[in-house]
């Protein structure tokens, strides 16, 4: 299984990650190399295995719906790249 430059460009868009033309080429080559090694998976006989989402005995863990102490907005916003009062500021989504 090999990945083309166009495949890489499509995946990069899904991953929201800009890649330069050079990076697209290198990534196509490297991902193809990795997928070659991963192809061995197709040889495994998985007919006896049901698909399981988790190896854990517990699932859907809930806690009691009781208010807990929380962090202050200032503390939580202290790492924000850009803010205005208690809001995060971002580039406009709509014109």
């Amino acid at each position, binding site marked *: 299984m090999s990945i083309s430059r166009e495949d890489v460009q499509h*995946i990069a868009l899904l991953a929201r990650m800009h890649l330069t033309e050079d990076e697209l080429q290198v990534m196509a080559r490297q991902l193809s190399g990795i997928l070659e090694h991963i192809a061995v998976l197709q040889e495994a006989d998985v007919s006896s295995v049901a698909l399981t989402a988790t190896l*854990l005995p517990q699932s859907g863990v809930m806690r009691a719906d009781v208010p807990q102490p929380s962090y202050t907005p200032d503390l939580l916003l202290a*790492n924000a790249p850009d803010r205005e009062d208690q809001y995060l500021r971002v580039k406009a989504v709509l014109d």
Partner: protein
Amino acid sequence: MSALWNLSIAEAGERLRRREITSVALTQAHLDRIAAVDEQVKAFLTVTAEAALEDARAADKRLDHDDRVTGLTGIPLALKDVLVTKGVRTTAGSRFLEHFVPPYDGTVVRRLREAGAVTLGKVNMDEFAMGSSTENSAYGPTRNPWDTTRVPGGSSGGSAAAVAAGEAMGSLGSDTGGSVRQPGALTNTVGLKPTYGRVSRFGLIAFASSLDQIGPFTRSARDSAILLGAIAGYDPADSTSANVPVPDYVQALTGDVRGLKIGVPREYFVEGTEPGVVKVVQDAIAVYRELGAEILDISLPHTRYGLAAYYIIAPAEASANLARYDGIKYGLSVREGADDLIDSLMHTREMGFGPEVRRRIMLGTYALSSGYYDAYYKRAEQVRMLIRQDFDAAFATCDVIISPTSPTVAFKLGERTDDPVAMYLADLFTIPANLAGICGVSIPGGFSEGLPVGVQLLGQRFEEATILRAADAFERVTDYHTRWPTLADTVAKPKRKSTKKLV
């Protein structure tokens, strides 16, 4: 005169409790050691000298008044920079988080503080724990104290090197596919990966959530037992943490392995492993036989699929986990020149992530994308179940599984950086334990061409006490774990004050 930095946690703890030494002196000895050798080793990203001495003074007070004294009270430790620490910069080895200061402590960090441990600082790692050499750190590679032209392993290379070089008495790392055990093997330290769910992941910056587990590095099995006992246990803040009682791991170290059934999986002794590594493991098997353990040949038939399943599952989970790095709430944000929000996002993620992280995000996104999901992700999860069934069948006949930890000794810096697949092969023997969720430990097993070789002991889920007992029994009749790299003799020059950056 013996230096304080070369004591074990168990020895130092006894001397602290008898008040023969103070935590302040012990902590200062480690800060001095960091100042003397870290230029060579480059294990630390941040040294919190003042906070460490403050912790030490508080610990001395507790020791003076016999107040809440534990096996870790007054003991200086280092933390992998993937564990969030309140008020102390936490980078995960990434440019993205260069200035990130967490608002809270992770559960393990909190537990260490409550036990009275001293935190020396944060240590280097492959970016977001992705790598096997610590060369993927955005802050430069860490060196192996046994040969500074070689890698310490990864991704917890800083945690391993700091302990190996005497810069910390113990440390915490994280192990997603071998990131504690493999650097343990390459640096002659004891690296333990607990059972999935044994230790809370709350406050561990996520890589692959179904595989990640926090584990200790130490210079003995006894110290590993002390450290594990302090961090293990149920945590309501991590829904995958297990509500299973924590045994007294130190009490379990009886030295007795008579009748212990040790399985030797034939699939782990195949071509490609260095002869010097195979010899060390065979010698270790002979030691266990002599100690009265029963050695059995076993088979883990799906081993050959492990690496492939891992390199689908881990990147798939990583691509989802790392989607949070959007430059909006925290971390790097590139806005200059961007047309709109998406454009800003695309460039932020381009600038913030290094090549390996980008590669894995791409691989994971591909494996989860429409049209490929069944062929890759679904199949990898099914194979994962087969690997788990292999181990369940094996542990029906044996108590411990023995193997090499890494197929090679520490490799040269730069040797594998251009070949992702060659780098991935370093984790061939460690990955299956993460896929199956079982526990494992790498112990100093001997040397090959002057470099440390790790022996891996795997145990069934929640059987950490069993593998630590086997590890301790081995240490009682060998001296490999007591050997030090010669680093100190060549470069140590005593300094009074740490010159590293203070936080």
